[in-house]
């Protein structure tokens, strides 16, 4: 039957199905080519002394100069160490906090009042759907020194003499960023675990209770093992993203006072590149970052294969 269809089509439209299907997908393939592969050619700029507005062949070729710049002087090395420290600390904090959604899901499952559970779930998921700009707007409204809620509250309670400038000060900035991250994503990240818990065989719970297991024993021996698989996959993915913590959150919260501590790798590339005009140097950093990221991805994938017997890619 298939062959007759093919033959009929081919004679009617003059083009075999296999090319027709390809032609239909072609516009989308071209979009991918232009927007995802196209920029890869821009990596060439890392080997030139790029100045905007001049075509590439008129620029001077500098070889690996920009890669050497990265570690050339003590000042520069310090800069790299600073940015990498920010990046790694922020990633480590976020990875350490990845157990929170697990705990959230486990303890929310202990709540047996349906409407309460549902309300908590819906309202805590909401912050995930607003932009980081809006999160910053909230942060500004709540924490600014003039009329921010927290400062006003502390003042009226008499705990505070002078307002604290939470947003500008670089103190505990890593922790603050981590807390905002938790505020925004905790409810959302827990959904996957809640679903995994819902999928656990209820008979296991019944059996454990009949055997006299207490609440925490049930959690430890049934619930936790039931969601470990999910947790593990997400943990591996976060290893793959270890140096890519994105720039949006840090960009909106950055200011001249906290910049040194908040500048993660992605933000640094933006600040020196589009912000500072060092296109070639920023591209060189991007290339190194991509190589490390890909390596981490393969490491995570390999780990997954060894430990779980299944890949994540």
């Amino acid at each position, binding site marked *: 039957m298939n062959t007759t269809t093919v033959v009929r089509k081919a004679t009617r439209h003059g083009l075999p199905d296999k090319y027709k299907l390809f032609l239909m997908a072609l516009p989308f393939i071209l979009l991918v080519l232009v927007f995802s592969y196209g920029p890869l*050619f821009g990596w060439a700029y890392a080997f030139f002394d790029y100045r905007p507005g001049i075509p590439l062949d008129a620029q001077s070729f500098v070889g690996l100069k920009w890669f050497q710049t990265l570690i050339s002087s003590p000042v520069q090395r310090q800069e790299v160490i600073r940015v990498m420290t920010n990046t790694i600390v922020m990633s480590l904090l976020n990875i350490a906090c990845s157990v929170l959604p697990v705990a959230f899901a486990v303890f929310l499952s202990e709540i047996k009042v349906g409407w309460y559970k549902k309300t908590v779930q819906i309202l805590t998921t909401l912050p995930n759907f607003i*932009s980081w*700009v809006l999160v910053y*707007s909230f942060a500004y409204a709540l924490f600014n020194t003039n009329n921010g809620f927290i400062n006003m509250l502390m003042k009226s309670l008499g705990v505070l003499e002078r307002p604290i400038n939470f947003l500008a000060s670089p103190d505990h900035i890593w922790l603050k960023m981590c807390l905002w991250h938790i505020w925004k994503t905790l409810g*959302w990240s827990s959904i996957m675990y809640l679903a995994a818990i819902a999928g656990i065989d209820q008979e296991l719970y019944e059996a454990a209770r009949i055997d006299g297991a207490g609440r925490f024993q049930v959690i430890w021996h049934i619930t936790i093992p039931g969601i470990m698989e999910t947790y593990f996959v997400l943990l591996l993915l976060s290893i793959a993203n270890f140096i890519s913590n994105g720039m949006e959150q840090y960009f909106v919260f950055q200011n001249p006072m906290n910049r040194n501590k908040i500048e993660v790798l992605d933000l640094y590339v933006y600040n020196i590149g589009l912000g500072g005009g060092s296109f070639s140097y920023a591209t060189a950093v991007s290339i190194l970052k991509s190589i490390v990221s890909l390596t981490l991805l393969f490491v995570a994938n390999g780990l997954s294969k060894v430990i779980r017997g299944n890949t994540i890619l």
Partner: protein
Amino acid sequence: MAEKIKVNLRKRNKLTAGDIAFNTVNYLIFGLFTLACVFPFYYLFINTISDNQVSALGDVMFWPVGVHLNNYVEVMKIRGIGRAALLSVGRTILGTGLMVFASAACGYLFTKEKMWMRKFWYRFVVVTMYFNAGIIPWYITMNALKLTNNFLAYILPAIVSPYNIILVKTFVESVPASLEESAQLDGAGYGTILVRIMIPLIKPILATIAIFGAVSQWNAFTDTLFLMSDAKYFTLQFLLYRYLNEAASLAALLKSDPTLMANMDLSKIQTPESVRMTVSMVVVLPILFVYPFFQRYFVKGIMIGAVKG
């Protein structure tokens, strides 16, 4: 044995002191965190509808004072806001629509084993999820394509989404092949099958990716930052960012004509705070409106994503 079970069951029904303590703490902690998630939304809202002078002093903390809606009327008069809102809505509708169609088309086409070099092209598209050239090469490319200060920059790069294509493809594979074969026998081409048969069948997954796509289009902010220098192309999110960071640009927008000020009710005159908060509310309201209706799609979406494509 049976007796023991009964005893145990009875024990389950009666809460021990430990249970009560646990439940109290558990309910309390979840209650507090939920409150922390919702309060900022509420706080901004009561401040936008309160007396602007009281609000500027920080005295609107738990409930509105001197309720008025003038801020929402005034904010619409700020130069550039209407246009920014139009751009935000435009990119959300157009960008999401095209992305959903492209995902449906690619998800369907890549299941067709007859396609020339299908495996290669599928991998060619999907592998782009895992690498990123970096923002400078991206910027240079967009610049070369004349997509800086161009509305199309919001639309074109977002049309093909490898992740969504995987989701749709997985869904298409679960559709019984017989449905398609009978249409094929009736002489329907691939395009007709896609539009008439496949898209109606895979509506649930399309709805899910549409919701996620729309949220990310509405919330997008960095593309404006990277690519647009002309204020004509600023979206709402970007304007909000500017109002939050550039007090000077904000002050210039506010009415500063003293004769005009004298005739106005002080409680309704805009302050930098009122503008910031009101624009924030305008940006978040669409999300708040659609959220209750689409919450189950959001949840469904993350669940589908959990199953590897």
